């Protein structure tokens, strides 16, 4: 799943895969601002065919957290 989430991050944020790690955090790079965050949410929902709760959208503060949240939906 990690590779799929990475691919979504690359597409949504327009960043190089090499800078993506679990430590990559929201608002710590200029490409991942609040506007890009909503684009990222849309890409995640499309890629994994899920609909995220508002709480999870707010809580998605890092790449590691994104994987955790997406896993929760896929297991549900």
């Amino acid at each position, binding site marked *: 799943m990690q590779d799929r989430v990475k691919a979504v991050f690359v597409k949504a944020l327009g960043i190089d895969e090499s800078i993506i790690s679990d430590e990559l955090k929201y608002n710590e790079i200029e490409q991942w601002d609040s506007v890009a965050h*909503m*684009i990222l*949410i*849309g890409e995640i*929902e*499309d890629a994994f065919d899920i*609909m995220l*709760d*508002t709480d999870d959208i707010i809580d998605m503060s890092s790449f590691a957290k994104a994987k955790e949240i997406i896993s929760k939906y896929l297991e549900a």
Partner: protein
Amino acid sequence: MLKGKTALITGANRGIGEAIARTFAKNGSHLILVARDIESLQKVKESISEVEVDIFSCDISKESEVKALFQKITKISKKLDILVNNAALLQSNLLGMIKKDSIDLLFQTNVYGQIYILQYASRMMKRNGAGSVINMSSIMGVQGGKNSSLYSATKAAVIGLSKSLAKELAPEIRVNVIAPGVVKTELISDLSQELLCEFENETLLKRIATPQEIADVALFLASDMSRFITAEVLNVDGGLCLN
């Protein structure tokens, strides 16, 4: 004017919402109609033959119901071009007689409900890279209304919400507001004949509006005819706001 478009209309089972649904159908839009009462919505669906119509029961004041609604909608359509946030409740109360329950009920339906719907609908529109949102306010939200401070407050909130979202969602999504005056619907059935006459006299065009006259403006805002209009509040009140 709307051929190939998909439109979501809340409160589509009667009054202005129903008129907008019929008008959009005549103009070729696929319809997704939402209301709490599925039986009346079913009747609207059965009376529309021009286009595909999907109906869903939803209490928009409950976030969980709105989420479930969009989970169903995304199964039938991956795109949403037009949103008409029309569902609302009307109550007249003197300030000293407004109960907390009334404040909660009106804000949850008229404001929270629009926000919940917008959160999900805007995500669908953003993915398509385009969309037109029409939020229904009221002339009372623009200039206030006697004995209607609570209702007016909710409708003023809709205007603030819409203008802010027009900035946030541009340039892909246009967000506009319709502020009707008095319209001949069930919502005003409790008004006395005397009060209705007063409204007619205060209106420059000397009558109240029909739901179709509001629907025609919604069609304009939904269509590409209004492609350079966003963050606008259109008073459709026959000149009532000038008195």
